[in-house]
């Protein structure tokens, strides 16, 4: 069973318990979109569902909002089971990936929709619509139609419309994926601020790991309908529970092999590459080692047993402004990325020419080791 992670502060606002959802595949047979997924969202939390496309994250969102029914398991909101409760009666609202603004209604009518259909009096409606539009920074555009708005503005209308009913939980289905890079970055920060102001729980779906890392209190990593890991962005980055998480989040190279104790503790890959590891790992185990680019640097001039050394050839050097990334080829043919830090050892790498032989080093206490399942090679 995967780790269910640390609960946030307070009681859970939303819980998903052993959710199972199957679809019949067009070719026949069934596809399990959700396989015993359990998670909880606590008051005021920003939780992200992260995973590659087709991992079941949108399905999970649709099961929580009530557009799909679970085949087994349960969704609870504020402790109340939602089984059999239609979408219109669930205290959750959704921001759709395509925004799904009503094209025939003006901005104000789009935002007011949730209040109108639930019978909120006109006077209160006007006040709350104005308030919601102010919260998302759309004052002055009340009379516009959706097709007269930019992508970012539409996004904001969708957001204002979804928060107007004061949901317990706001579901966001890749809401930023249609925006360009700059706008996406500023919207990420705005969303985070808005969430803080409103105090509503956000359950945010994305396939963009960077987005997940910057915005979330906790991240739920999904793969093939199963939870790989739940944890804070720091936990996922530094201590991924599975090699899938290690590969999906952040850059880095993975080496799978067997632990040997003699002469020094090391992980030996199947093709014979020997990587020094921290002390105290029992020999004989099969593990995967994760080497992040920032953990690698130029090897120190004097031999030091605190470091693991890798011989490599420089293949590419990419300038990113604040940093430079070097792509190196190891003896066994694997590629590895290095972000040298400023300092004597790093500088040596900066000066290297393409094709030069390099000695890379990492503190052998640093790289994270992932236990491999016995059956998985």
């Amino acid at each position, binding site marked *: 069973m995967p780790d269910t992670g640390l609960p946030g502060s307070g009681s859970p606002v939303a819980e998903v318990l052993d959710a199972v959802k199957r679809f019949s595949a067009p070719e026949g047979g069934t596809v399990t979109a959700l396989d015993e997924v359990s998670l909880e969202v606590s008051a005021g939390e920003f939780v992200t569902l992260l995973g590659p496309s087709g991992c079941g994250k949108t399905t999970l969102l649709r099961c929580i909002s009530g557009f799909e029914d679970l085949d087994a398991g349960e969704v609870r909101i504020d402790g109340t089971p939602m089984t059999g409760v239609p979408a219109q009666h669930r205290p959750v609202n959704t921001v759709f990936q395509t925004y799904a603004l*009503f094209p025939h209604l003006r901005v104000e009518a789009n935002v007011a929709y949730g209040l109108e259909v639930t019978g909120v009096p006109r006077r209160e409606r006007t006040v709350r619509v104005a308030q919601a539009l102010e919260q998302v920074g759309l004052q002055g555009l009340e009379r516009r139609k959706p097709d007269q708005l930019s992508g970012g503005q539409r996004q904001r209308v969708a957001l204002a419309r979804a928060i107007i009913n004061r949901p317990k939980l706001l579901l966001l289905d890749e809401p930023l994926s249609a925006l360009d890079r700059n706008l996406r970055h500023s919207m990420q920060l705005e969303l985070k601020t808005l969430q803080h102001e409103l105090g509503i729980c956000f359950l945010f779906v994305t396939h963009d790991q960077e987005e997940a890392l910057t915005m979330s209190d906790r991240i739920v990593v999904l793969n093939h309908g199963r939870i790989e890991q739940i944890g804070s962005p720091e936990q996922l980055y530094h201590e991924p529970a599975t090699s899938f998480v290690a590969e999906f989040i952040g850059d880095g190279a993975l080496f799978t092999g067997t632990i040997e104790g003699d002469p020094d503790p090391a992980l030996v890959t199947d093709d014979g590459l020997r990587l020094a590891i921290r002390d105290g790992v029992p020999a004989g185990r099969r593990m995967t080692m994760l080497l992040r680019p920032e953990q690698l640097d130029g090897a120190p001039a004097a031999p030091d047993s605190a470091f693991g050394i890798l011989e490599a050839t420089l293949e590419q050097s990419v300038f990113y402004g604040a940093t430079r990334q070097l792509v190196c080829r190891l003896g066994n043919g694997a590629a590895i990325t290095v972000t040298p830090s400023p300092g004597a050892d790093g500088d040596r790498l900066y000066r290297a020419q393409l094709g030069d032989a390099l000695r890379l080093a990492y503190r052998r206490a640093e790289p994270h080791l992932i236990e491999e399942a016995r059956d998985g090679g």
Partner: protein
Amino acid sequence: MAVKRDRTRLAVLLGPVSLFLGICFIGPLVVMIIFSFLEPGLYGGVEWNFYHWNFGRILGWADGEWEDFDWVYAEIFGRSARLAFINVLITLAICYPAALWVRGLPRRWRMFVVFLITLPFFVSLVVRLFAWVLILRPTGFLNYGLVGLGVIEEPLDLIFTETAVLIGMAYVLLPFMFLPVYASVEKLDRSLVEVSSDLGASSFQTFCRVTVPLTLPGIAAGSVLVFIPSLGNFIVPDLLGGAKVLMIGNLIEQQFLSARNWPFGAALSVMMMAVMFLLILIYLRRIGRMQTRP
């Protein structure tokens, strides 16, 4: 240079259609309008004098004499417009739910159902209407079956009634309503329906506030496509309505073919086109207003 090329392009693209419509549509229309203001000849044909009593007769004022005032033609106009309007409602009531249902089908089934809807076009209209005569007449399949089942004792008076005409017209014009309605229903973004229920709307509220407003263009197109042929139809009332349910189409046909009063037939045609044009204009403006409503 560019302007000249554009003009050539325009001539090539629009030339054939302009020529065709000019000869086959505008020409006859002008002839019709001219004829409607000519005096009918004593033995058919026309006298080339300006004569406006053709229109007077339609309005009930046959020759300027008050004692001859007669509503009969206005009544036929009224009946035709009423039946055409009811027919629009019937076809809409049948096609809209059907279109919603078809949209829910798997893609390949949708194509198949749309094909089935257009299937009747492969058989001659007259043949299909004669089939309805066989079904509806007192000794027809419907009465035979109902009497046989003991639902009714005496055969129902179905044929040669307004009901029969409505059944026939709805049957003939169903595809003209279904296709545009279905096209707009299929285009409707499903996520808009979902977001509506997500925001707390009931199915009925979603239907009234999202589905119908967004499919209005299809409803409008279907209504016009059904209304126009209904109003001018003469085959259906001729076969299923008999002499009792006379519609403008029959009247015009009679004037041209039996009564040989071409100017009066032309006036009836011009009048019908004017009425149709006016009604459709009002209708489309109303629909347009509903759509841009804030």
